[in-house]
C-alpha cells in the first residue's frame, strides 16, 4: 500500500515544501507581542535558550534570551529563523487518510479507530512483532518515555527504535563500556578553563555553532586547539594544529597519538593504576601504531602526529570533544573508545577544565536516549535484557515481567524487516527515514511493502507521503516538556501556542491510540508534567536518575544536571570527580582497538571517498528547515565539495554539474571546487530528498555494537555530464 498515492508534483503542490519568509501578515504588521515565552531552540543538541514572541496566539518572532547561561543570547541562523515554521502554509491541521488520488481529511475518531483496528488485525494475523514503532530524538523526555511504554505495553511489540540510532548510539555504547554511564563527562563551562581543546570529527562551526565561542574563550586564556577532520572546517581554519585524517581511519590515528604520548612519558601511571583497568592491552596494541608506521594509512605525516602527542602531553588540562565524524562508522564505537583511551591514559577527566564529551546532534540527543524508546532499553537507561532491570520496570508499570517484550530491532533493521515482509505495520513519530537512512532506494522499497503505515507529523515529510494515515501532531512550540542538552542539563521546553486547527499534542495522540488498544489505565495522563512525574519515578535507581528533578526545580535553577537522585540533590554538572566511575568497583575500563578498513572501501572502480554531513542553515532531514525561506536561500542545494587537484584530474570546473556514482545508485550535483578538503575525499550534505539525496549513495553497513550506519565513508566515482552548467 505504501506507494505514493498521487504524482509527486501534486503532493508537493499541496503539502510543500513551500518557503515561508515573513511573520503572519508580513514584517510591517508584526507589532509588539502580547507575551514572551522563554524556551529553547527546536533544533540541535545545544538547545540554546530563546524567547518566542507571541501575538494573537501566533508565534511572530524569536528574541535572544540573554539570561540563559548556556548560550547567553547567542544563536545560529536556524535559531533566529525557527519561528517561520509556525503559521506555515504546509502545516498539517487535520487527520489525513490515503485515497486513490492523494490524501483526504477524516475525523479524528475515525482515524484513531482505523489505527487501532489495523494494528490489532495485523498483529492477529502476523504476531505482535509484525507491528513496529519508529520514534525520534527531537522529542521531549516526556514523549521519549511515553513512546517506549506505548510500544511495549500498548502495541506489545519489541520493535521500537529511534532516529538517535543515526546520531548518538556509537558514543553512547562506548561511554557505557568505558565509564559505565552515557553522558557528557563535563559541563560546557569547563571548556573555557582548559589548556588544550582537541576537536575530532566535529564540524563545530556548522553543527554546534555556539560551542565555537566556548573554544575561543579557552583560547583567550592561552589554550591551544587541535582539529582532526578530512575537511578544513571553519573551526580548523585558525587551529594551532590541524590533522586532515583520511576518512575511516580515526582509531588508527588516535592510537598513533597515544603511541606518541606513551613515548613521551605522558601516561599518568598513578591515575591508570588507581582508577582504571585494562591499560596493558591498550599499551600493547598502540605499540603497533608508531606515527611513522601508520602515516600513510591515516593520511597524516608522522611529524604532525608527534606534534599532537607533544601538545597533548604538555597541556596540564585538556578537553576532548568529538561528534558524528568519528561515530558514523562501522567502527564508530571503536573510534570513540580510542579517544577515551587517550583521555584515561593521561588521567585527563573529572576535574575543572579537564574532561571529555561527545557533542550530541539532535535536539534531545541526550535525554531521548535514556528513557526507554531504544530497542534495547527501559526507562532510567536500563538494559531491557537485564533481568533485574526488567523486573524493576515491570513492577513499576504494574505488569507481569513476562509480558514485557524483549530487545527489538534497531531502526535500520526495522526497515530491513519491512523490506523482507516480517514487519508489516509501522507507526512513526518524528522520523524521516526516507531522507535520513542510508541507501534511500532500499528504504523506499521497504515503505512500499508495508501493509499499514501511520505517521504522526506536523509537516508531510517525504516518508509520511507513503503513509495510509497521517495524524497532525505538535510542533516544539505547541507543547510543554523537558529536554536534556549536550551537557546533561535537563531544561524546560515551554508551550507558546496551542496546536492549530485540529492538530493535537503528540502525547495526546499516543495516549488516545493506547486507549483504543485497550490500555487506557496505563496511559491516563492529564498533562505532559504528569508524564514527567512518572518518568522521574521510573528512573529512580537507574543509571540516568532523574528522580530528584521536577519542572519547578528546573525552572528555578535554569536546568538541573542528572544524575539527581533526590529532591534535595543539586544535580551533577561534572561526572567522574576524584576518578570515580560508574562501573561496579568505580574503575574506568580501557578497550584496546585495532584498525579495521571501512565497509565500503575504495578500489579501482570507485576510487574516491565520499563523506557526508551537515550545513549550518539546514537541520537533519530538512522537514522543517527546507520550508524556511531565508535558511533555504543561504544554501539552496547540496553541492559536491572537491579539491582542485581532484577536479583538475577529472577535468571538472567549479559549478559544473557532475554525476556521483556509488555501488548503490547515482545522483547529479554541482561541483564546488575548494582547496579545503583532502584531495582524495569529496563531501555532500545530506538534508535533501529524492534526486538530491546523498543517502542514495550511502550503504547499509552498521557498527556491530551500536548499529550506527557508516555515513562517513562510501566509495564513489565521479563522472562528467555531457552538458556543462552555464
Amino acid at each position, binding site marked *: 500500500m505504501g506507494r505514493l498515492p498521487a504524482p509527486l508534483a501534486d503532493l508537493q503542490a499541496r503539502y510543500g515544501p513551500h518557503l515561508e519568509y515573513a511573520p503572519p501578515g508580513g514584517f510591517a504588521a508584526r507589532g509588539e507581542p502580547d507575551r514572551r515565552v522563554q524556551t529553547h531552540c527546536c533544533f540541535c543538541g545545544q538547545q540554546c535558550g530563546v524567547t518566542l514572541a507571541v501575538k494573537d496566539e501566533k508565534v511572530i518572532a524569536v528574541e*535572544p534570551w540573554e539570561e540563559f547561561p548556556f548560550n547567553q*543570547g*547567542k544563536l545560529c*541562523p536556524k535559531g533566529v529563523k525557527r519561528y517561520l515554521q509556525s503559521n506555515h502554509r504546509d502545516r498539517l491541521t487535520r487527520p489525513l487518510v490515503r485515497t486513490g488520488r492523494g490524501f483526504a481529511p477524516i475525523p479524528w475518531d475515525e482515524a484513531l479507530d482505523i489505527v487501532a483496528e489495523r494494528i490489532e488485525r495485523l498483529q492477529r494475523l502476523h504476531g505482535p512483532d509484525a507491528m513496529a514503532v519508529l520514534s525520534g530524538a527531537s522529542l521531549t523526555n516526556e514523549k521519549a518515555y511515553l513512546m517506549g511504554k506505548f510500544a511495549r505495553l500498548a502495541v506489545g511489540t519489541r520493535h521500537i527504535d529511534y532516529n538517535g540510532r543515526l546520531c548518538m548510539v556509537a558514543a553512547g555504547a562506548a561511554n557505557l563500556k568505558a565509564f559505565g554511564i552515557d553522558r557528557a563527562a563535563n559541563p560546557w563551562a569547563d571548556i573555557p578553563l582548559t589548556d588544550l581543546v582537541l576537536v575530532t570529527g566535529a564540524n563545530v562551526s556548522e553543527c554546534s555553532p555556539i560551542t565555537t565561542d566556548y573554544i575561543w574563550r579557552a583560547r583567550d586564556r592561552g589554550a591551544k586547539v587541535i582539529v582532526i577532520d578530512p575537511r*578544513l572546517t*571553519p573551526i580548523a581554519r*585558525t587551529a594551532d594544529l590541524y590533522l*586532515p585524517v583520511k576518512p575511516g581511519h580515526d582509531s588508527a590515528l588516535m592510537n598513533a597519538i597515544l603511541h606518541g604520548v606513551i613515548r613521551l612519558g605522558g601516561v599518568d601511571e598513578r591515575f591508570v593504576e588507581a582508577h582504571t583497568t585494562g591499560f596493558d592491552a591498550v599499551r600493547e596494541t598502540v605499540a603497533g601504531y608508531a606515527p611513522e608506521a601508520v602515516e600513510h594509512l591515516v593520511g597524516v605525516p608522522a611529524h604532525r602526529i608527534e606534534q599532537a602527542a607533544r601538545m597533548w602531553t604538555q597541556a596540564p588540562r585538556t578537553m576532548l570533544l568529538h561528534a558524528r565524524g568519528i561515530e558514523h562508522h562501522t567502527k564508530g564505537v571503536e573510534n570513540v573508545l580510542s579517544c577515551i583511551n587517550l583521555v584515561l591514559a593521561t588521567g585527563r577527566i573529572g576535574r575543572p577544565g579537564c574532561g571529555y564529551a561527545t557533542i550530541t546532534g539532535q535536539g534531545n540527543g541526550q535525554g531521548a536516549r535514556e528513557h526507554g524508546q531504544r530497542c534495547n532499553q527501559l526507562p532510567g537507561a536500563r538494559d531491557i535484557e537485564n533481568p533485574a532491570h526488567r523486573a524493576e520496570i515491570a513492577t513499576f508499570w504494574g505488569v507481569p515481567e513476562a509480558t514485557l517484550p524483549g530487545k527489538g530491532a534497531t531502526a535500520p533493521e526495522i526497515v530491513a524487516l519491512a523490506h523482507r515482509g516480517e514487519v508489516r505495520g509501522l507507526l512513526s513519530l518524528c522520523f524521516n527515514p526516507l531522507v535520513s537512512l542510508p541507501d534511500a532506494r532500499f528504504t523506499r522499497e521497504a515503505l512500499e511493502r508495508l501493509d499499514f503505515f501511520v505517521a504522526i507529523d506536523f509537516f508531510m515529510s517525504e516518508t509520511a507521503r507513503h503513509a495510509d494515515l497521517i495524524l497532525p501532531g505538535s510542533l516544539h512550540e505547541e507543547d510543554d516538556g523537558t529536554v536534556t542538552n549536550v551537557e546533561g542539563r535537563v531544561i524546560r521546553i515551554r508551550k507558546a501556542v496551542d496546536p492549530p486547527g485540529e492538530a493535537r499534542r503528540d502525547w495526546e495522540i499516543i495516549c488516545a491510540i493506547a486507549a483504543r488498544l485497550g490500555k487506557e489505565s496505563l496511559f491516563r495522563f492529564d498533562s505532559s508534567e504528569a508524564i514527567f512525574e512518572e518518568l522521574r519515578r521510573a528512573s529512580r535507581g537507574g543509571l540516568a536518575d532523574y528522580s530528584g528533578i521536577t519542572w519547578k526545580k528546573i525552572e528555578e535553577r535554569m536546568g538541573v544536571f542528572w544524575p539527581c537522585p533526590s529532591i534535595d540533590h543539586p544535580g551533577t554538572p561534572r561526572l567522574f570527580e576524584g576518578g570515580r566511575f560508574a562501573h561496579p568497583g568505580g574503575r574506568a575500563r580501557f578497550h584496546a582497538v585495532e584498525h579495521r578498513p571501512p565497509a565500503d572501501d575504495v578500489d579501482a572502480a570507485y576510487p574516491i571517498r565520499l563523506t557526508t554531513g551537515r550545513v549550518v542553515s539546514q537541520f537533519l532531514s530538512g522537514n522543517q528547515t527546507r520550508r524556511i525561506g*531565508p*535558511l533555504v536561500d543561504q544554501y539552496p542545494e547540496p553541492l559536491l565539495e572537491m579539491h582542485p587537484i581532484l577536479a583538475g584530474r577529472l577535468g571538472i570546473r567549479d559549478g559544473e554539474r557532475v554525476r556521483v556514482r556509488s555501488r548503490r545508485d547515482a545522483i547529479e550535483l554541482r561541483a564546488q571546487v575548494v582547496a579545503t578538503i583532502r584531495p582524495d575525499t569529496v563531501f555532500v550534505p545530506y538534508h535533501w530528498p529524492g534526486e538530491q539525496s546523498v543517502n542514495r549513495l550511502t550503504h547499509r553497513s552498521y557498527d556491530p555494537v551500536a548499529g550506527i550506519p557508516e555515513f562517513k565513508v562510501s566509495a564513489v566515482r565521479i563522472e562528467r555530464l555531457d552538458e556543462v552548467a552555464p
Partner: protein
Amino acid sequence: MSRLDHATLFIDPQRCIGCQACVQACSECPSHDGVSMIHLDEVHRATTVQTAPSVCMHCEDPACVAVCPADAIHKDAHGVVHTAATERCIGCANCVLACPFGVPKHDTRTELMTKCDLCYDRTSRDLRPMCATVCPSGALFYGTREEVEDERQARPIDVFDIGGQAVRTRVAYMLPAHETVLHVAEPAGPRRSVAETCLEEALW
C-alpha cells in the same frame, strides 16, 4: 549616561564561522524588516573558509556624510552615522562610491541608500545590537574597549591606512595578539595558515 557613549562593535574575523546568524538576525529588526544591514563576505571560497561580517564602521569623519549632496546622512552626538534619511535621500549613490569600506548599498527598488546604523533602535535603549547578541562565535562583540581588552587576547584597532590616508572609526577590528599591523593585501600574496600547511602535507 547611555552605554552608547562608551560601547561599540568590535569585529574579529578570526572567529567568524560564516554562519550568517548576524545577517538573519539583522533582517528581523523592526526598522528594516526582512532586509539585513550587515553583510557577510566570503573572502575567497576556492581557497579558504574565511568569512567576515561587514557593518558600518561609523567613521570619525565619514566620507559618506561629506559627499552626500542632499545632506541626508547624519552623524549624531554618539558618533553613530545614521542611514540616509528617506525624505532627503535622492538615491545618487555618491556615498556608495565614497565609502572606503564598501558599506552603504543602493536599493534600486526604492532608490534609497541603506546601511547599518549600529542598531540604533536597540543600542539607544542600552540593548546590544542583534548581530552581536546572537553571533555564536563572538566574531561580533558589543561593549567597551576595556571590556574587550579584558576578555580577549586580540587587540582592537580603529585606525585604517587606506591609500595613504588615515581613517579613524568608531567600530573597531580585532587584530591577532601577535600582530601590530595587518596588511589586508599582503605584498607577497596571502600568508599560509598552519591549517592550510597541514592540509597541503596530507598523504593520499
